[in-house]
């Protein structure tokens, strides 16, 4: 798993993602909390962060009620990913629920939590495990939003997030137990 993680980190960083790894969920959530504080998500009149999926963390400024307005107004979107593909540094998620897409697309920062055990070597391994008959919207994310449409100059953050923060958790369930 360490080899896959190292490869993922190297490849994702080439794609301008930030990659972190923690032994358990508690530490990972501490890190997320720190990032939320740093972004001042509790300071505005509206929640500064939107979180799609399981309520892993209650904190001021974090809303689990993901509407398009809330997501469009938030600084940070948080979600959990189903897989991570090492050889391209890619995150994969069944994003059929629209909330999953809103939090990973509209806010300028996307924090993506994923279990280290969910690392797969590559796309082929993922295609064997996912069924498009069940997942209506399979989202694959590799680094933040980017363009080079003006003079071929790479610019990060066009329509999607300008920061993608990937948080690996070795033992995702311990924090819950």
């Amino acid at each position: 798993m360490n080899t896959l993680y190292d490869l993922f980190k190297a490849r994702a960083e080439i794609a301008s993602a930030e990659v972190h790894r923690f032994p358990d969920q508690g530490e990972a959530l501490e890190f997320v909390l720190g990032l939320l504080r740093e972004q001042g998500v509790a300071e505005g009149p509206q929640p500064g962060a939107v979180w799609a999926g399981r309520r892993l963390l209650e904190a001021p400024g974090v809303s689990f009620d993901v509407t398009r307005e809330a997501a469009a107004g938030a600084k940070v979107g948080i979600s959990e990913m189903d897989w991570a593909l090492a050889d391209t540094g890619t995150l994969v998620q069944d994003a059929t629920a629209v909330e999953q897409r809103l939090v990973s697309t509209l806010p300028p920062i996307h924090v993506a939590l994923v279990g280290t055990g969910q690392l797969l070597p590559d796309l082929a391994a993922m295609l064997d495990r996912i069924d498009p008959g069940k997942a209506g919207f399979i989202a694959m994310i590799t680094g933040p939003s980017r363009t080079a449409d003006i003079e071929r100059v790479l610019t990060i953050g066009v329509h999607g997030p300008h920061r993608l923060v990937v948080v690996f958790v070795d033992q995702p369930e311990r924090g819950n137990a």
Partner: protein
Amino acid sequence: MKTAFKESIHAAVNNANLTGALGRFSEAYRVNRAKAYEGIDFEALRERIKAVKSSAAGQQEALCEAFKRNAEAKGAKVFRTADPAAVKAYILALAKEKGVKRVVKSKSMASEEIHLNKALEEAGIQVNETDLGEWIIQLAHQTPSHMVMPAIHMTKEEVTEIFNTEVESGQAPDIPKLVKFARAKLRPMFLGADMGISGANIAVAETGSLVIVTNEGNARLVTSLPRIHVAIVGIEKLVEHFKDIQPILQALPRSATAQLLTSYVSIITGQVPNTDGSPKELHIILMDNHRSDMAKDPKFKQALQCIRCASCLNVCPVFRLVGGHVFGKVYTGGIGTILTAWFDELKKSDDIQALCIQCGNCKEVCPGKIDIPELILELRRRLAVEQGQPLVQKAIFSVVNNRRLFHGMLRMAWLTQKPFKQGKFIRHLPMFLSDLTDFRSLPAIAEVPFRDQIKQIRQPKGKEKVAFYSGCLIDFSYPEMGEALVKVLNKAGIEVVFPDKQTCCGAPARYSGAYEVAAQNAQDNIDALLEEDVKYVVSACPTCTVALKQDFIGTFESLGMTDRLEKAQKLAAKAIDFSTLVKQLVDEKRLTFKEGKDLGAFTYHDSCHLKRTLKASEAPRELMRQAGYQLTEMAECDMCCGMGGSYSLKLPEISAPILERKLQNIKATHAPLTVMDCPGCVMQIRGGFDKEGAAIQVEHTAQRLVDRLE
């Protein structure tokens, strides 16, 4: 060639912004692409893509039906049509029925192909392209100049000017700020749109899935925020199985932008929830527009293997000079020429097909393994059949096809060139011929052609004989190359015979689409070269070698002259290029180099046909090293020199800047000697240096080896 077309070329090659941007991009692309493919067996990968796409092209009807069935089972509505007008009518009717006022689009070449935006705007619907490049050209009222990078022809200053006049004044030419501005302006468009229109990079028949690849994230918003999603999909995007998407997703980003994967890949299957919880309306339009005609054409079916990565544009020496707009309004570059001929009409490709110099770069990098140069030749052939050849060309070929008259006229030319000749060069030609010597001197025609000179060479009368196929340039302009070849082979105890009835290899005719002329040339040469029983037929011109090895067969096959194939194949098996044969003789120790001597540095220019068709790039380098020279590689050593046979006569305005770049790359090595295996490249490069007055020697490999062999 139409005047307006010539003028568009002239404007493009003189647009420093355009050629600068494209030139820098193509240089970086080459390096970055190679890096993106590190550790991947590209040949195996493209075989898989070819298999997947070609199988799909062979069962289009069944796949369309399967896709429709499976997507509709998941709640999508699928509309199949052959007619671009019906696509527009469907979308307009849908918009009217659902009260759509505002549309956001992510990039779709299929929608460009049918000029959808115009139809929507005329119906009073606001349309916003959301891919940054597409948005810029929409604001500028232009068309995309590149399939992947639509606005690559524009500078940041031009973009700023467009934003200032079309959106909001006060913008500065600072790229990150311009991008931020676009984000801020387009965000409300996404949130307020009633309909999102996208294309698809792949459509999977067995699951009814659409695969959409983007970097900016706009396609995710287009397919998530508006309550209606319409996807326009050309039926060549269909693949049979879900697992078929893997090789395409592996190659597309690497070939398109040298990325391992784009930032976003979305796989959409059926209806997904809207933000208000309702199921999103999903309409998928499967558009034919002559794609099924292509699938039925035995030659052009392979063009459906295209995955629209545009790598054929990125490596094209002509595209990087003229950009996309010279090619037309929608699909550009090599594959674009072919698609234009089919999706629009054959005669629309009349001018643009002539832009292809047949260097073969695109064929080498195409992840769909499409023989783009061959298909462009086939367009040329069909155009020549349909419209006839230009008169001047016809007159020339009637001469070329008459061997005695042709050779007689070349000898006559030696007399008429006298007023223009300075030593071994013709440096100026009068009047309408002046373009030909503007940027490079032409070689003078030799007083005694090689076919007569060889009779004076005393050769070993041995048991082993090799026939020499000289080609026109060596025979009439560079007999010294022929002499060197004969002397080299003599040193291995081989007698070189010169079959007198050999004539032009037919490449000029074939590359002009005049296949009947080429077939006659082929037949004359086959008869001449098979007359005597020889082990090899050697040539010191790669284009001629390719003619002997492949093109004679290809021409006969194209014309259905199957009865001539057996002899053509017999000749093909004997044909060999000079360096490969000599390397073989050296390896067999039948030729040995003289004792070591440091002869200084040289750089090697790979001729297109030698490198990419005959795959002989190492042999000449190795021979030169063994002869005592040190190799200094130049940048882009295998990029075309701009000669392209008669290309440099037809399009000197493109040939000249391609040559200019080659000369610069050679000079940057500081090597005093440039070596190559093609007399055509020697003519172009030596002529270029002569015009500049540069003291760099340009020679055929044979000339440098002859004195170094025992």
